């Protein structure tokens, strides 16, 4: 009843949100790099950079959450493999290596060219990244493309594992009936893909506006379809979980029912289910089913709005899982309210800052390795 523990704070749910974006963005990039769907060429490289930027930031909310961040490496020095969390070091490093290698190979022609053309110190990072090899002969590039395909192919299961594993972290806690379900990793995975595609649609349209580029309609059309498909999957799974719990009427339902109708009424029913699921479902349905009658501008607006709402949906889903799970007492004999603090170490401001960092990093990465322009025609 009166367990004395702290909440896991807002910054903590940033971790599953950010890794979700990593996995989703990577899967979009794979549409181009593995399946060679040409319509995604305009964003293939950008999606990779997005994935990398968010991956590099994924550990930040965790470090912020740890009581002893200076001991974080213990998780790799003495990993205890009966713990789902200990797998993090292995999965994260593996995925990071795959992703960095893929980014490096995809951008290698640009790296070599910039290393040769930029003056003085400006070329230094590129010379370092080129590893002293300026071989851009067609046979070499063909080999690179083969390796890229292999890496991207390994990357898909790796991304799924990395994020499915985040779902497992919650799903495997038998002490918490709101978390403990084998559906959890799958729900996390599908909603990760939703958030990744949605993020790319938003970023792509934003960057195109800023650069004055034309938005590729075939690309957007394809993304909208995938987004709609994955959204339907996600919502179905999320509803299935609740419906099963409600129908079985186990002991847990006694506490989960008041949880979702009172404590989480706004964030679960209003935000996650209506604003974030129903409305984008209708918008995307219009965009997909009426596709051939749509003016480009209408399609842009429909997908942009739906994507923004879906980003909110996935965010609120993470919120409801992570925060909601901690509102119940362990003896299932009562609920607590949660009032996020704004300025605390793990408060709202920290969460906003943590979410802003990957965007800043993405901006920096895009400056270093320009993903748009002539490059995508050559690669």
């Amino acid at each position, binding site marked *: *009843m*009166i*367990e*004395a*523990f*702290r909440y*896991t704070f807002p910054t903590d749910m940033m971790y599953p949100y950010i890794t979700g974006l990593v996995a989703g963005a990577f899967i979009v990039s794979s549409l181009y790099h593995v399946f060679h769907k040409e319509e995604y060429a305009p964003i293939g490289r950008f999606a990779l950079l997005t994935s990398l930027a968010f991956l590099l930031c994924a550990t930040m909310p*965790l470090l912020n*959450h*740890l*009581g*002893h*961040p200076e*001991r*974080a490496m*213990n*998780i790799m*020095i*003495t*990993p*205890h493999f*009966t*713990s*789902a*969390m*200990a797998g*993090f070091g292995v999965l994260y490093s593996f995925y990071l290596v795959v992703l960095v290698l893929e980014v490096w190979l995809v951008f290698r022609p640009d790296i070599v060219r910039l290393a040769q053309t930029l003056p003085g110190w400006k070329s230094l990072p590129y010379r370092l990244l080129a590893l002293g090899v300026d071989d851009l002969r067609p046979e070499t590039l063909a080999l690179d493309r083969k390796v890229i395909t292999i890496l991207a192919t390994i990357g898909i299961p790796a991304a799924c594992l990395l994020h499915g594993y985040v779902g497992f*972290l919650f799903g495997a*806690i*038998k*002490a*918490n009936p709101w978390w403990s379900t084998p559906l959890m990793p799958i729900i996390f995975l599908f909603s990760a893909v939703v958030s990744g595609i949605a993020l790319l649609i938003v970023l792509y349209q934003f960057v195109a506006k800023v650069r004055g580029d034309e938005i590729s309609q075939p690309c957007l059309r394809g993304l909208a379809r995938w987004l709609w498909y994955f959204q339907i999957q996600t919502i179905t799974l999320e509803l299935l979980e609740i419906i099963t719990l409600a129908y079985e009427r186990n002991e847990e339902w006694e506490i989960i029912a008041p949880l979702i109708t009172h404590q989480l009424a706004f964030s679960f029913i209003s935000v996650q289910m209506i604003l974030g699921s129903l409305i984008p479902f209708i918008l995307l349905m219009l965009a997909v089913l009426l596709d051939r009658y749509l003016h480009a501008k209408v399609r842009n607006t429909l997908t942009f709005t739906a994507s923004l709402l879906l980003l909110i949906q996935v965010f609120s889903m993470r919120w409801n899982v992570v925060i909601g*799970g*901690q509102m119940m*007492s*362990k*003896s*299932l*004999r*009562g609920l607590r309210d949660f009032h996020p603090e704004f300025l605390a170490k793990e408060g709202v401001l920290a969460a906003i800052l943590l979410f802003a960092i990957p965007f800043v990093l993405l901006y920096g990465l895009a400056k270093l390795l320009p993903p748009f322009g002539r490059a995508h025609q050559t690669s």
Partner: protein
Amino acid sequence: MAGAAITVALLRITPAQAAEHAIGMLPGTNYDPEEHLYAYVIDITKCIGCGMCVQACSRENKVPDHFFRTWVERYTVSEQGEVIVDSPNGGKDGFKPITPGFKVAKSYFVPKLCNHCANTPCTQVCPVGASYNTPEGVVLVDPKRCIGCGYCVQACPFGSRFINPVTKTAEKCTWCYHRVTKGMKPACVEACPVGARMFGDLKNERDPIRKIVTEAHLAILQPEKLTKPRCYYLGFDKEIR
């Protein structure tokens, strides 16, 4: 040189060489952990809710205010089966009369603490091996290895763990390991004026706890979680969770 370093490094890839080493006597004592196996019995019918145990625990273990390694809950049940559970300040200052708003059919106190489960979800999820089970059946946390991730706090079905706001590491009841290794009982057991809390060594044939654990009708908390608690309850009620 580099070769030797790499060899050492690879040899230590898996640090667990457990069972190859006997722990033996703890340095400077004549106490051998492998010679003991502890159990804890709580008699609900005896507990008077004075909270002396909670107070003694917090003093013995310097538990920060508003956090508890052991606490006492009061269950108040109506004839219709409505249940109110309260535990003001963990019971540390005792209990005052309450007016539940219904006719009380039964009421009782339930002391709680870490169950020192044999099948521990908390040590299972510790990512760094900071939390572990000793041969005596005690679950401990190494404050020098704990990274303060709080995963064990979430994994414990009994709410027995918390992150100490001062040390920022996971903390919980140790069954006063520092006392029992010196031949004393846990502070809560010694503070109980009515003998509602009992502690003993199942490997000691003369210890009264053996008879209770083997012969009495005992209950455990949340048996469906299959954590195999080593804290047993006498006088249990179906409302207790």
